[in-house]
């Protein structure tokens, strides 16, 4: 490198850039210049007159305007923190889109940091959603698959959400480009919640200019915290185009858990079923219709188990049978167990349509039964409609099993393990359909 004898003289454009305070040449209002040298257009916040900064730091009047200043929840020169960097609002623009006869306005706050350029903080007035825009460091690939337009950028894929025409309706502050009220641009919005990609076409002197902005959803609370604002942010309505789906949060872990739990379920169900004896402790059939008493052994004493009692009667034809069953433990300190089982068969012919209902066998599962010796007492009854005698050849039978496999425990855990992620999935689909209702792809009613 060349060594210089003395340091070269300093240049004003290498010195610290100074803020400036000037008066609007139209209304005289005080304008603070904090965009430093990069500003191409200044719009007076008070009257709306369009001004152009000259090389000497003065503001030349381009167009005299008289309009009221709009109040804003976030004013000019407010400072905030995003991406761990400080930013200042140097310009505010209101734009609107017209669709289906409705007008949808939003605010764009131009954020500036001299070392990092610009960001766009969007506030959608019609649904209270916020978003942060950042100029893209490249150009996305735009294509279409299965009739749906897509944009890809780095490793993210965005789906086309809507194309709209935006009109600028209010301007105040400083801008590094020529902005004016009445500017119209076409915007193609692509989404991949919580992010989005906006491709905007601006007609300019050299032809149409394309700008790419990467969008990020922001919660009102994040924005208020970034600005150090107290109070509650406005409540958002509905689902914004790239507001993240709350039911999709942790989706990977949910389905990963499902795989693990489903595997556990398979394993434990097999173990459960295999460990059941399903042993028949008593089985008698073709019994006459009179009380029946017998001693039975339900397993070896000392355990608690399940007991299935099955009762049947045949032949049933438009008749019913009922068994009044009592199981008396031999160790008569314990309480006896009583239950009733009913079986029936009904059929008929209703003007040509024959029908049949009823079951000639039925069972009941008892839980928490102590194993050991029991006296089984069955008192059967039968009948056939009101006032008619039961069929004479009716016979009945009974079977008692212990340690039976009960499907209900297996099914319960199945429904819990599968149902949970399914319900989350369904809710997530509902939210997505609400999101896409506002897009260009909403099913027309």
């Amino acid at each position, binding site marked *: 490198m060349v060594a210089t004898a003395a340091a070269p003289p300093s240049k004003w454009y290498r010195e610290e850039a100074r803020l400036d305070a000037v008066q609007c040449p139209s209304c005289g209002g005080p304008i603070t210049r904090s965009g430093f040298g990069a500003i191409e257009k200044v719009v007076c916040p008070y009257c709306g007159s369009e001004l152009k900064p000259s090389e000497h730091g003065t503001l030349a009047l381009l167009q005299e305007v008289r309009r009221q200043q709009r109040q804003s929840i976030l004013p000019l020169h407010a400072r905030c923190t995003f991406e761990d960097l400080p930013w200042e609002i140097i310009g505010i623009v209101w734009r609107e889109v017209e669709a289906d006869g409705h007008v949808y306005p939003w605010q764009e706050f131009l954020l500036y940091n001299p070392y990092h350029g610009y960001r766009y903080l969007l506030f959608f007035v019609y649904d209270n959603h916020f978003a942060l825009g950042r100029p893209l460091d490249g150009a996305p690939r735009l294509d279409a698959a299965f009739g749906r337009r897509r944009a890809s950028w780095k490793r993210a894929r965005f789906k086309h959400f809507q194309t709209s025409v935006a009109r600028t309706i209010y301007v105040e502050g400083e801008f590094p480009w020529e902005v004016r009220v009445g500017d119209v641009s076409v915007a193609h919005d692509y989404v991949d919640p919580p992010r989005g990609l906006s491709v905007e076409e601006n007609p300019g002197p050299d032809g149409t200019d394309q700008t790419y902005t990467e969008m990020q959803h922001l919660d009102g609370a994040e924005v208020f915290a970034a600005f150090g604002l107290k109070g509650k942010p406005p409540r958002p309505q509905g689902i914004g185009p790239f507001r993240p789906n709350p039911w999709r*949060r*942790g989706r990977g*872990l*949910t389905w990963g*858990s499902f795989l693990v*739990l489903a595997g*556990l*379920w398979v394993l*434990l*169900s097999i*173990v*459960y079923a295999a*460990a*059941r004896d399903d042993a028949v402790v008593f089985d008698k059939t073709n019994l006459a219709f*009179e*009380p029946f*008493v017998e001693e039975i052994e339900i397993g070896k004493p000392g355990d*608690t*188990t*399940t007991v299935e009692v099955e009762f049947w009667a045949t032949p049933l034809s438009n008749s019913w049978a*009922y068994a*009044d069953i*009592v199981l*008396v433990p031999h160790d008569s300190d314990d*309480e*006896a*167990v*009583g*239950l*009733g089982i*009913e079986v029936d068969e009904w059929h008929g012919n209703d003007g040509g349509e024959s029908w049949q209902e009823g079951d000639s066998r039925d069972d*009941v*599962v*008892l*839980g*928490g039964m102590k194993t050991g010796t029991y*006296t089984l*007492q069955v*008192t059967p*009854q039968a009948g056939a409609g009101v006032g008619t005698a039961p069929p004479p050849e009716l016979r009945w039978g009974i079977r008692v099993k212990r*340690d039976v496999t*009960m499907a*209900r*425990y*297996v099914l*319960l*855990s199945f429904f*819990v*393990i599968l149902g*949970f*992620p399914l319900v*989350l999935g369904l809710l997530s689909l509902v939210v997505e359909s609400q999101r896409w209702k506002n897009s260009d792809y909403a099913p027309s009613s």
Partner: protein
Amino acid sequence: MLPRHIVYWVLSLGSLGLLTLEAPTGSLLTTTPERGRVEKGSQTVRGRPVFIWTGGGYQGGK
């Protein structure tokens, strides 16, 4: 790890716990039969005792 994952695991492990620990004895999720004291009644035709429920409650029949 979100609250929903905790809920999912708690409910799932709970139901699997039921399957593993409760299902063999079946104390839950089964019909509640009548329980009570019985006393021996008169003999039946075959010489076997008939048990009758004490203290009212279960009347039997339809």
